[in-house]
């Protein structure tokens, strides 16, 4: 049944309140079951052997000794997996990333796996596997990988998107161009043109829960996979495709998920656990170590970006260009392309061009990380925006406002924006008390903007009403940050029942139709939309039952505040029937009452944010302390403001970590030097101040409640905001993220030396 997804401006009773999350008690008592918390009879322990080399030919893998070790039940290599070469390239790459085939492509690339009766035996078995490698030249830096003399990682990689097809393979997988207008004419009309280059290092989502699963495959192909994932349905279809299983025979249950941020949208060890289980015919539990998580899952791209922005003295941007080089790890990815679409999205720039280069290097296959690709492009753009404002002597916020994107502005990727919130966000920033607070000597303030598309996608929910009038809502998006609370509120709002009367349940793949992965800030947007429609379906059933109970035509029944009421002549004396009353009679009026909805939740409203950051730089050590931080973001409609604020704060904290200290550090040998939380420095509690939030509500016209996704956008501005604040505090413009103490002190020194030279010369 088709439903209208237009925003109606309906008044809310439940939505917008701060209800307690329904899974809270399980999570504060330790009862909640995550990826590593399931067990099965006869279960084995799975472990993976990984390449210590950045790039190497695998000449031979001798597993015979490991196989003979008592307690070892299965050993697998790529020989035990289907060879998908020549088929669907995407799937072939995923499988080759899960297990090296002939070549190890990065430090940490899986080469073999074992299943044994216990951890000690499995560890022993890994040591007994002998792999003979022949080291190959490697490259891990994005700019070096593009150089003509770089070692070419894949001989099948010919750059796509060039006007002339290349004759030689290279590490450049793809060239993308976006934009509109006449850039040359635009720059010719500019009074001021600023050009600058930036680099950002690779970061990891850093979810605290490592990947973990429990796989069980029977000889007849019936299989189960308990796993921590953002996308149980896509894990099911991908694992089925990789291993040749039937989709319907593989039941995937998503555990409670201990953080994902995009990193749990793709499979890593899950196909290996299934293959081990198939070989051993016993359940296999496979939990990654933290070291493996860093070395062999999907971090974000490291980048190299050139920006050029031209403006008139009056502050109008006349043209802007971006050149974006993003490495996607050892396989082609869409990351620079995404950056092309987002870089200038906050601004109304008539003449603009973004060119993206997707590059292959000897690093793990990049995955999505919260607003993937956008923060790095925004860092370059937002830093340069401040430079231009400075050059024309205009306030940096006013300069942004003068060029801000509005309803009717053409997006970098083509379409014209509907109602969007970046102008309102910047105006809220300008008015915010934070902007008026005084800074002390050595302190600085920066503002930056951010954009993320948000997505919707295939969604399916079931709503069932019990005979006591309580409601079950089964959804197929996973709850990454409190979504069950929002979805219960939405169902309660529609049905007119209490929040506590609705219990939301994340269904397994055998109990519900396909749901796209919980990514792109789509959970509450999409499942919320489906929940509204499913509730409305159920209301139709409820009305039908009420009509039977009251013996009136169903056309005469209206549904108001959780009650059925008969309208029209002669019905005035009939009692109102509550949902509870109708539900109680349901066994005798036609059986269970349910609502169902499947929808492609298109029309996700764009998300925009503006951040303010105050900080202090220790000019003798280069250390930066964040003093005050404010997030302003458009949520469309905040269903449960507590968890909207939580998303804003968490995203900002991740952005702050990225800006200041987080980075993958590769040695000359191409090996990752900091695969642990000690030297991959995510912010700790004492590194951060309270993070203020301001929720704006500019309704998304294509959602009944006006909801926009809120999860990702606020990771985009912090890099620029902090770079701008450091410049404000020190007079030095940083062009390399993370802006770690070593880099900041180095930049301060260089600036001081330059000053000395200038004054001496």
């Amino acid at each position, binding site marked *: 049944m088709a439903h209208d997804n237009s925003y109606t401006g309906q008044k809310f009773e439940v939505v917008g309140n701060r209800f307690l999350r329904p899974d809270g008690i399980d999570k504060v008592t330790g009862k909640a079951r995550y990826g590593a918390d399931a067990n099965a009879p006869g279960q084995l322990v799975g472990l993976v052997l990984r390449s210590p080399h950045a790039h190497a030919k695998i000449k031979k893998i001798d597993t015979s000794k490991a196989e003979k070790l008592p307690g070892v039940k299965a050993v697998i290599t790529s020989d035990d997996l289907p060879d998908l070469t020549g088929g669907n390239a995407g799937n072939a790459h995923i499988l080759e990333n899960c297990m090296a085939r002939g070549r190890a492509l990065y430090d940490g690339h899986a080469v073999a796996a074992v299943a044994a009766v216990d951890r000690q035996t499995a560890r022993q078995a890994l040591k007994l596997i002998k792999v003979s490698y022949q080291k190959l030249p490697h490259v891990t830096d994005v700019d070096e990988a593009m150089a003509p003399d770089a070692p070419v990682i894949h001989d099948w990689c010919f750059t796509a998107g060039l006007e002339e097809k290349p004759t030689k393979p290279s590490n450049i997988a793809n060239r993308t161009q976006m934009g509109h207008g006449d850039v040359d004419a635009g720059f010719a009309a500019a009074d001021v043109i600023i050009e600058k280059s930036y680099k950002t290092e690779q970061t990891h989502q850093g979810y605290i829960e490592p990947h973990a699963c429990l796989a069980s495959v029977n000889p007849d192909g019936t299989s189960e996979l308990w796993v921590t994932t953002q996308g149980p349905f896509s894990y099911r279809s991908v694992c089925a495709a990789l291993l040749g299983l039937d989709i319907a025979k593989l039941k995937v249950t998503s555990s409670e998920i201990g953080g994902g941020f995009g990193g749990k949208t793709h499979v890593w060890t899950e196909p290996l656990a299934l293959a081990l289980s198939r070989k051993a015919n016993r359940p296999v539990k496979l939990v990654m170590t933290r070291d493996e998580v860093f070395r062999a899952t999907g971090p974000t791209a490291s980048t190299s970006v050139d920006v050029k922005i031209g403006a008139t003295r009056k502050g109008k941007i006349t043209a802007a260009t971006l050149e974006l080089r993003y490495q996607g790890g050892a396989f082609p990815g869409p990351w620079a392309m995404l950056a092309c679409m987002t870089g200038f999205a906050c601004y109304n720039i008539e003449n603009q061009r973004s060119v993206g280069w997707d590059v292959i290097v000897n690093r793990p296959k990049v995955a999505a990380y919260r607003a993937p690709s956008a923060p790095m492009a925004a860092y370059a753009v937002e830093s340069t925006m401040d430079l231009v404002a400075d050059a024309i002597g205009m306030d940096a916020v006013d300069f942004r406002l003068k060029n801000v994107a509005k309803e009717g502005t053409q997006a970098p990727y083509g379409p014209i924006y509907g109602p969007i919130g970046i102008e309102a966000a910047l105006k809220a920033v300008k008015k915010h008390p934070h902007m008026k607070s005084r800074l002390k000597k050595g302190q600085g303030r920066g503002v930056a903007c951010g954009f993320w598309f948000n997505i919707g996608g295939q969604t399916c929910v079931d709503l069932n009403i019990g005979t006591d009038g309580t409601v079950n809502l089964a959804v197929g998006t996973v709850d990454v940050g409190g979504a069950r609370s929002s979805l219960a509120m939405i169902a309660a709002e529609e049905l007119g029942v209490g929040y506590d009367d609705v219990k939301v349940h994340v269904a397994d793949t055998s109990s519900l139709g396909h749901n796209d992965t919980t990514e792109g800030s789509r959970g509450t947007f999409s499942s919320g939309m489906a929940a509204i429609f499913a509730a409305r379906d159920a209301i139709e059933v409820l009305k039908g039952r009420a009509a039977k109970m009251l013996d009136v035509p169903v056309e005469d029944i209206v549904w108001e505040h959780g009650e059925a009421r008969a309208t029209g002549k002669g019905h005035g004396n009939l009692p109102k029937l509550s949902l509870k009353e109708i539900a109680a009679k349901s066994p005798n009026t036609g059986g269970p009452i349910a609502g169902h909805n499947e929808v492609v939740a298109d029309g996700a409203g764009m998300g925009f944010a503006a951040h303010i950051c105050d900080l202090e730089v220790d000019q003798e050590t280069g250390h930066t302390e964040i003093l005050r931080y404010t997030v302003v973001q458009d949520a469309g409609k905040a269903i449960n403001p507590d968890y909207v604020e939580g998303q804003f704060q968490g995203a900002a904290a991740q952005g702050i970590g990225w800006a200041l200290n987080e980075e993958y550090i590769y040695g000359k040998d191409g090996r990752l030097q*900091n695969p642990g939380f000690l030297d991959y*420095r995510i912010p700790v509690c004492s590194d951060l101040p309270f993070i203020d939030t301001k929720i704006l509500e500019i309704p998304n016209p294509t959602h009944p409640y006006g909801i926009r996704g809120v999860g990702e956008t606020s990771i985009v501005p912090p890099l620029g905001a902090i770079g701008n604040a450091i410049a404000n505090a020190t007079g030095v413009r940083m062009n390399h993220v993370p802006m770690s103490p070593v880099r900041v002190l*180095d930049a301060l020194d260089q600036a001081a030396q330059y000053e000395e030279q200038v004054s001496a010369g």
Partner: protein
Amino acid sequence: MRYESPATTKEAVALLAKEKGAAFILAGGTDLLVRMKMGLAEPDLVVDIKRIPDMNTIKTTQTGFRIGAGVSGAQLTAHKAINKAWPGVVEATHLIGSDQIQGRCTMAGNLCNASPAADSVPAMIAAGAKAIVVGKGKRRTVPVEKIVTGPGKTSLKKGEVVEAITLPKPAKRTGDAYLRFTPRTEMDIAVVGVGISMTLERGVVKKARVCLGAVAPTAVLVPAAARALVGSKLDDAALNKLVAACAKACNPIDDKRGTAAYRTRVAGVLAKRAAKIAYKRAGGAA
């Protein structure tokens, strides 16, 4: 792997001396267990010293303090008299990891793990701490700076155990301080560490010890840096000499935690700051 938890130092020494394979002492375990997890240590024998009463107490003696090798950072931090006598040593030990780590980590373990970046070591050396080393049938007292010989290497012989660390009773008008630099505020390894102690006489530095951490294969005691302070009231000239002496004593490497140039530069910055704190603690006018 065999696990033993002897009740006396003598038993511990006997176990270690007898073992043919790889034997390790388990004090706090905050380094050993990480190394085991990473596959970097594969012990045949682990000797847990935390059930040896003598090794798990702090004693106030006539000459100062005796801190058992199993005493945790948390125990040390809670000890009022040591806090008063050697606040720099306590602060340095407190900087080893989180509160969780503090519940386990020990000064002796921090020393014997022989990391160039160990936080408590420069502070101990600046304070003139000594290690009581017990071997089969003999016991010796060694200045802390003589224990570590290189990254992961110590002068301890097979079968020898550090039983305790001693801190002297500070002379009147003595103050100490330890500062380290880390990118994060907590949960980090020193990029540079500086421990300083000094004794004043009428506001003039009479004696000083300056020790740098994380700028060389071992913590380095820098007599030239101490000389820069002695005889001064911590005026700018003295502090500048201190900075220069520290820079000269640095022999760092470029690694994932910092560059050699950065370490050399920041060693001087922290030395200056630590000297001011120690001076104030010794009763000098700020």
